[in-house]
């Protein structure tokens, strides 16, 4: 756990570079700046980003996978490293949780509250 905390702290080195105007972004609705995720360049997250980049998925699901990657980044870096066949790898876990979230929201959408 101590090792994880150290790794997390090291990876909290800011992704946002202050002298780069592209990183001083404004959220379109409320004007807040949007920072980079502190675990963005963690080796596990970096590896998953590279894998997702090459996956032949449609834009929506691909975007959603990246969304989940950052949403659950702290849990992904804390997962145990399973041997082959011992448990789901990080990509599999990410896809499962992403599909689960999408499924919940789809149910909400297709519930057609008020228009059934």
């Amino acid at each position, binding site marked *: 756990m101590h090792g994880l905390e150290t790794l997390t702290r090291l990876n909290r080195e800011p992704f946002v570079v202050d002298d780069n105007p592209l990183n001083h972004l404004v959220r*379109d609705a409320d004007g807040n700046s949007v920072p980079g995720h502190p675990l963005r360049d963690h080796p596990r997250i970096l590896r998953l980003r590279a894998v997702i980049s090459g996956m032949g998925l449609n834009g*929506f699901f691909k975007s959603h996978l990246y969304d989940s990657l950052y949403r659950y980044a702290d849990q992904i870096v804390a997962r145990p490293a399973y041997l082959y066949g011992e448990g789901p790898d990080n990509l599999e876990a990410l896809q499962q949780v992403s599909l689960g979230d999408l499924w919940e929201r789809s149910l909400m959408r297709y519930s057609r509250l008020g228009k*059934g």
Partner: protein
Amino acid sequence: MNRRQFLQSLAALGYGISLPAGALADAPEAAIEQAWETAVGNPYTFYVDSKGVISFSNDQLWARPRAELLGLFPVTSTGDLFDLADEVGAFKSILAEEHARDRARDPAIAADWRSWLMAAREDTVTGLIRRANAWLEEIAAPADWRLAHLKGYTDRGQALVFFRDEFGFNDLLGIAILADGDPGSAFVGARLQTGLDEANLRAVANRLPIHFALWRC
């Protein structure tokens, strides 16, 4: 209102209604009503930011490259350049600018950028591919976030889709749909205009199993 379908969704979400999701499909109306009462007491929560924009989640937004936000592929060929231009108008403008610059140097080249790109020399295409991939890796700008919202790729965008296409009580709760895609508009999304307390009161008064909470609270 299709209470049965809505209750099924709440059951699947684990919102503790009194009938399992499978049983709801064949349950008698009295049981549906009873389950609805339970759902009303345990509503689904949406999150509303300081400007009133509704989101499906309470999660922090993180800066991301354009390719990640919009789920775009790296570019490796002329065909990919066309695909990217068709997918994102901003990149089409970049190609059009490159074409205009090239044509200013050589008026003999094709007048439209598509024909120019089809006939472009290998070094020109290589340069455009390099530029496209650099553009994809730039951090997403507000215009990209707006596009992602409109496409329903973000939590806010998914809420926009839900309230625009499915929800039948926007007028009652004071929800406005801001999705015209006007580049000059401040933002896009489903916007709660009545305020949290008022909207929640109206939801309760009309027995809707839906609740609004402050985003990032």
